């Protein structure tokens, strides 16, 4: 087994202990979606304030609530920090890029997004060596995608 230090990097534990953007946003105007990880019972809700239309709309605010393990919580925290202020198009690219890092097939989109920087999120790379934890790391991201797709609040 790869060492646990590959999984529990300091930056991950930091986001776990001090999660960014925790809380809720009023719905509407915010969009939101709820995600479950049936394996471990983790539940997460992602709230998004989106200004504008289409891919150019801006994710002006993001909040995350729910409970989960260090991996799902830190991934959610890093995700929230990474998407805040980005355009919807950029966010989608980031989601693809992150999923490709998690070795989840994204229909060859990988190449196109290879230049998108993941920043802190790179720390989650070690999760790939612990396949059962991949679902923990991607929970927030799948919920983000759903929140983006959730019908316009008004």
């Amino acid at each position, binding site marked *: *087994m790869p060492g646990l230090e590959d999984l529990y990097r300091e930056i991950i534990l930091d986001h776990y202990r001090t999660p960014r953007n925790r809380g809720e946003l009023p719905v509407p105007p915010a969009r939101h979606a709820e995600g*479950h990880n*049936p*394996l*471990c019972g983790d*539940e997460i809700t992602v709230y998004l304030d989106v200004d504008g239309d289409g891919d150019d709309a801006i994710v002006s605010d993001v909040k995350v609530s729910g409970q989960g393990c260090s991996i799902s919580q830190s991934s959610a925290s890093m995700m929230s920090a990474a998407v805040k202020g980005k355009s919807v198009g950029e966010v989608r690219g980031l989601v693809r890029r992150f999923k490709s890092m998690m070795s989840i097939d994204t229909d060859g989109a990988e190449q196109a997004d290879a230049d998108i920087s993941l920043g802190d999120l790179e720390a989650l790379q070690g999760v790939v060596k612990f*396949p*059962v*934890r991949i679902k923990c790391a991607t929970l927030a991201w799948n919920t983000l995608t759903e929140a983006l797709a959730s019908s316009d609040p008004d």
Partner: protein
Amino acid sequence: MSGTNTTTSSTDWAAIRADFPILRREIDGAPIVYLDSGNTSQKPRQVIEAMDDFLRTGYAPINRSAYRLAGWATDRYEGARAAVARLINAPSADEIVFTKNATESMNLIASSWGGANLREGDAVVLTHMEHHANIVPWQMLAERQGIELRWVPLTEDGQLDLADLDQLLDGAKAFSFTAMSNVLGTITPVAELCRRAHDAGALAIVDACQYVPHNVTDVQVWDADLVAFSSHKMVGPSGIGCLWGRMELLDAMPPFIGGGNMIADVRLDGFTTAPVPAKFEAGTPPIVEAIGLGAAVEYLEGIGMAEIRRHEMDLTRYALDTLTERYGDDIRIHGPDNVEVRGGVLSFEFRDIHPHDVSQVLDERNVCVRAGHHCAKPLMRLLGVNATARASLYLYNDRSDVDALADALDGATDIFGL
């Protein structure tokens, strides 16, 4: 596609036969002549060993625990799903649902899809050659929801009589039919039947229980909507069956069996469901059986389904010819004579001897055939018999088995002196 480019000459059928340990067992000093594969098939050592090895070194829960052993077991389980998807060319492995047998798959379809989509007076079209597994679930639904069942008749030589099909399909909500009859051996024109169902606005549901084990199956070429089959008839273990369905359909269907694994959340006042396929796999699944089924699919793929079909066509032709040459009018074999449209299932009447007695006499020579109604009583009534003897062939059979059958039939004459 599995083995479509294997050439006939490349397969060592004797070696394949040798893969099946039970065929080396002797009873009263002579080997078993197993001609009951239409009922359930024997298993090659590759399948037996995969299960044995998994039980000794890899057994663990699926989808529930997070330690590595459980993760590896889950990967193997999902690998089996992917193998089954490959075998029938399903667009996605997530469209494969593991059930306990084809019967549960059919019940799932009738109860979940039928229960949600059919109303009093709605019609479902079946055929006169269906197995009880594709009759009783609809009759149960008919009792509950008052639906109407319509029956496609048969031609003299045991094929579907499609003359009035459009009329039967008119206004029908589903057409549920077998891809191959377990009594007559008849292979039905599945792609055509799916097209005509769709043209009439009906769902196309295929009982492929006898088809998948013996033929190249491509659910996309068929353009079917829901397809059911069983592991135990395709050299895989008992205790696991399959359902394939188009994702939009499965997605919209309510659950059939409720409990662990099929939920997203449960509260005192209700539950929400997990995505397909988990939605339809409540409780601890057939874990070891899935591993065994995965190995069975790999075994079949290693030979190639097209190659298996060729072998069986050849053997079926030989059997039809041998029995008719030897017994002429004393034997009456049901179903089509053309092996292009029939599989290796031979139901027959032998003189006036009751099939049960025929089977008894054959058993004295270790020839194993089934005698009975083959879970197709409506078809039996149509044939005017209450039972038939049935020899059914598979990839491990060869001409010596057919000869043994033909020889053993002589014994019946001695006793019943006809």
